[in-house]
């Protein structure tokens, strides 16, 4: 893993008091507090707000297809961030995260289509439903060690798939639930500039806003004392237990939160893609979302959204030329695993540090004001 891990770890430790040599290296190259204390111009710009605003202009400046891609990115970003709460923050490798995404999609879809619930109720219900299922399944999962944990999450996700695939009366079976209605978004006409937007574009804006709020909440959770405990568990579960932390309880809490947000992403996705189908819940989707997370960089909060954007963009760029998208994805994955375990964000951080070191060596002084 060499330089990538070393660089990422030292970034993580930079603002903190120096850790002892006995400190085990984080298992994934993880930066939990990458905010440097110096404040050059570039870091005074609120980048997340800028990205959010740029994404919000897509329905006006882009085509319908661009809006579609942007919607895909936004929803995948939330899904991948929820997975990364397990993977990057808590150090749990789930191979069945798509189960909670699927439960959310089905709960929201069934409530809106079959029972005519309004979106404002069905959406939170989807999150709660997924969180509840995560509570039940997670209760058993967190008891198991690594590979068994991965297998049990896989088993639960396949149970969801089997139910979705066969329970015709409720889930529509292999026909799925097509034509889930859009929520009533007439109120958006009152917002200046939105009057001419199609309902699809409006739903994209609503999704963007909901995802932004969700990401803000997850970000808050990761940076909270609770999130710190999760990171401690990831780095060294035994030490966390010695400190009096109830490791399983914290892991379960992370599992439930991750499941809930995955459910919200699923609810949005069902409406966005105009239907919920059993294919969404097949186990290979869990692998895809893992790849997305790793591609962006599991060690960084903004890694998974970057991975989502990169993968959605790559997918449409590659499928223009060839039908062998899986082959390309597999090749990307190989490059990632053997060359850039830190993902895109990890690679950029490494590049940035190299550039800085290069500049520092050339000018002969630090060139930076360290607080």
């Amino acid at each position, binding site marked *: 893993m060499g330089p990538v891990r070393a660089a990422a770890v030292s970034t993580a430790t930079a603002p903190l008091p120096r850790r002892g040599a006995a400190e085990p290296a984080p298992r994934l190259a993880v930066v939990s507090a990458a905010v440097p204390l110096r404040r050059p111009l570039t870091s005074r710009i609120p980048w997340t707000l800028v990205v959010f605003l740029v994404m919000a202009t897509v329905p006006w400046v882009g085509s319908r297809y661009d809006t579609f891609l942007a919607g895909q990115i936004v929803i995948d970003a939330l899904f991948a961030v929820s997975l990364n709460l397990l993977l990057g923050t808590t150090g749990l490798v789930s191979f069945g995260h798509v189960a909670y995404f699927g439960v959310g999609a089905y709960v929201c879809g069934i409530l809106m289509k079959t029972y005519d619930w309004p979106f404002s109720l069905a959406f939170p219900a989807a999150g709660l439903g997924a969180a509840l299922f995560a509570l039940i399944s997670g209760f058993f999962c967190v008891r198991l*060690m690594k590979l068994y944990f*991965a297998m049990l999450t896989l088993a639960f996700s396949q*149970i969801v798939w089997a139910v979705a695939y066969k329970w015709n009366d409720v889930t529509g079976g292999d026909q799925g639930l097509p034509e889930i209605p859009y929520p009533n978004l007439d109120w958006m006409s009152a917002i200046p500039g939105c009057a001419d937007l199609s309902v699809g574009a409006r739903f994209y804006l609503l999704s963007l806003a909901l995802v932004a709020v969700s990401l803000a909440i997850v970000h808050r959770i990761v940076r909270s004392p609770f999130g710190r405990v999760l990171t401690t568990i990831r780095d060294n579960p035994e030490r966390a237990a010695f400190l009096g932390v109830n490791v399983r309880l914290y892991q379960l809490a992370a599992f439930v939160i991750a499941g809930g947000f995955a459910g919200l992403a699923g609810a949005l996705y069902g409406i966005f893609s105009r239907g919920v189908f059993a294919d969404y819940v097949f186990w290979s989707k869990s692998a895809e979302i893992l790849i997305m997370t790793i591609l962006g960089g599991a060690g960084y909060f903004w890694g998974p959204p970057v991975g989502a954007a990169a993968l959605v963009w790559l997918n449409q760029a590659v499928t223009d030329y060839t039908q062998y998208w899986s082959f390309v994805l597999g090749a990307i*994955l190989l490059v990632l*695993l053997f060359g850039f375990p830190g993902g895109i964000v990890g690679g950029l951080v490494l590049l940035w540090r190299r550039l800085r070191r290069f500049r520092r060596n050339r000018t002969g002084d630090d060139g930076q004001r360290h607080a």
Partner: protein
Amino acid sequence: MSPSFLFSQFMGGLTTAMFLFLIASGLSLVFGVMRVINFAHGSFYMIGAYLAWQVVQWLQPSGGVFWIAALAAALGVALLGALTERVFFRSLYGREELYQLLFTYALVLILGDAAKFLWGTDQLSVSTPPALAGGVTIFGTTQPLYTLFIIAIGPAIAFILWLVLNRTGTGRMVRAAQMDREMLDALGANVSLIYTGMFALSAFLAGLSGALVTPIQSIVPGMDVLIIVQAFIVVVIGGMGSLWGTFWGSVIYGQVLSFGILIFPGFSLFSVFALMAVILIVRPWGLFGRPL
């Protein structure tokens, strides 16, 4: 429900079971020695099926061609497995499980598309070898000879594997590698060769089962991801890394699937995954395995 109906249901379950055992035994071997869950095992199986079809095409269907094709396919896949281990997998030992899992998943993606590229997306099929084309009547049901052959070959392979693992010097080395790799290495054994050998053997079994399945199932893209989950279930039920566990796990799986259809129509899929989950919860090391 007449006895002959139940019997044919039982035989159906047993056929499924023995096929799954052929596939899952390789998965279980690799897990036992290297502690790696190989998602690409299903892809090896699929490549075995395609290779068998290809060899049959080359040699033109006649007498013993099927058996040559099956052996060639298994050997071809074994070579592929050995190469994979030597070139890529080698550098992943000692890394996190996630990287190993994702690497094997990358192989799934790459091999799946490679098969589509080489053999297209149409269904392909291979005819039953003439010697086993007929059927025999047992308890008033007609059982094709080929499925009886499969039912016989499962225990035969299990017995051979058991013999090799427990009664030969090589087998002793493998079991030692399973227990303590570093110690075996320190004692001067060529552990790296053992690992390559195990990977090749596991791929051989996958390729062989892929080839043997062709007379009764058509070869289609996507058969890799469908089979791997079933193989996981079998291995989990019996105990990851345990040979006889995998054998009995497949028998249980086959019967649950076969009779589950009678009891809860439509929910037999659910029942096998539920069984897998319950076993992982109650006894993560499986019915016949030992705790890690």
